[in-house]
């Protein structure tokens, strides 16, 4: 299958690969997917006192589209407030990366990873987890 230039770019030069200290209170970690399904994403955010995401890191086991989706997500997260980050929709990722229909699940996974990281952060800081959206897959 032919990949879009943007997918190839993120895949070849992934942004923000790495690990944040998951034990820190201002770090939220989301681990989604399953090895059996062929993709696992781990996305982490570091949040400052103003609820702004100052850093984001990812590691992904999966196809090129999954890697690109999570790489793009970290780029978008940095500098956003938590409230803004929650609004990132998987279809924005699909559009930006020009993902074909069989790869839409990669963008869904990235959105799930963002939400999971935010919830981890919220729970750590004594907040209610966000209501999970009805699963779209």
């Amino acid at each position, binding site marked *: *299958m032919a*990949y879009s230039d943007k997918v190839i770019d993120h*895949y070849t030069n*992934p942004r923000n*690969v790495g*690990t944040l200290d998951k034990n820190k209170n201002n770090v939220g970690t989301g*681990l*989604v*997917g*399953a*090895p*059996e*399904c*062929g*993709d*696992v*994403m*781990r996305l982490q955010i570091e949040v400052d006192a103003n609820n702004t995401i100052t850093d984001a890191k990812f*590691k*992904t*086991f*999966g*196809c*090129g589209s*999954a*890697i690109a989706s999570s790489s793009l997500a970290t780029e978008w997260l940095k500098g956003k407030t938590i409230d803004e980050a929650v609004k990132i929709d998987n279809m924005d990722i699909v559009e930006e990366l020009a993902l074909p*229909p*069989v790869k839409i*699940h990669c963008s*869904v*996974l990235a959105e*799930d990873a963002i939400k999971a990281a935010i919830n981890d952060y919220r729970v750590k800081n004594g907040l209610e987890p966000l209501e999970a959206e009805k*699963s779209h*897959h």
Partner: protein
Amino acid sequence: MNLPIYLDNNATTPMDPRVLDAMLPYFNQKFGNAASRNHAFGWVAEEAVDYSREQVAKLVGANEKEIIFTSGATESDNLALKGVFEMYKDKGNHIITCVTEHKAVLDACKHLEKLGARVTYLPVKTDGLIDLQQLEDAITDQTILVAIMYGNNEIGVIQPVKEISAIAHKHGALFFTDATQAVGKIPVNVIEDGIDLMAFSAHKMYGPKGVGALYVRRKNPRVKVTAQMDGGGHERGMRSGTLNVPGIVGFGKACELCRLEMADEAKRLSALRDKLQNSLLELEESYVNGNIEHRLPHVANISFKYVEGEGLMMAMKDLAVSSGSACTSASLEPSYVLKSLGLSDDLAHSSIRFGLGRFTTEEEIDYAIEQTKKAVNHLRDLSPLWEMFKEGIDLDKIEWAEH
């Protein structure tokens, strides 16, 4: 060295230039119909077909009268299974095959089940070979056919064909083998191996696509199949349709070349394959799939744990290889062959099949080793699973979210 490098010779092979040269005159100069008995055009075509049939037969130790030309191995598989079932249905309705067969065999069996056949799908051991005792235990007085492939297309393992045919014959069943991956690569002899029917194809052995053969034994015992294509009664009534003369000429030439060069080629390819395999096994957590002793000389199927096959292939963009992960299709299903060896889904997703061929060079293999290692390391740097493994976390104990 030209990029990308072709290492998918189990899918298809490039045609040998000598095969192409042999075929060319039969498109426009010697274009006759081999069934035209009344003029020189027909005679020339018939003569070419006869010569090719001899070459094909000779490669597998058959008599030329036992070779039925078809459009390829899929048709041969269908003709063998459906043709035997129809011809011998008064004797019984039971067929034994195995779970790692090609889809052409499995789906033909599924079709026959709808028509009243009872089919046993034998499991394979973790090395990809069937258990002979299980085979014998599965045979009943209704068993008419045992259908087990010669060499597997994904992992290259070679089934113990002689032993399998002996068991089938002991109980009065016929033995059919899909030898598409084996013929032309290793010595296959229908007499010594006790084969009653055998499917194979030209394009896997440096011949053209669209032509194959079904070997049908003529004596001890005389085997018959009911035609699945009705028409002019070509191929001794078993396969009607005007013969694909250029294709058959190419098939004959390809068989002749394999017969003459196979021994040296196998030696060269298995040395290159072993070099590739041993170098890649230097990577931590990499494993060969399937029995390494009973294996085709040109194939290595290797799993690289904690990286995903499709992502890996993308990093290996200068190498044309095949992945056990079918996640390019909408199904997301890993290879059923690897799964039947007992591989977990994640390991099946992480596998790559390297298929070497006549035109593979050592320079290409060196490049493939370097590229593959680089790709695996790149993806492991990106892989949360690799990081967890390195931290000593047991991935099996994690509750993964279904998705």
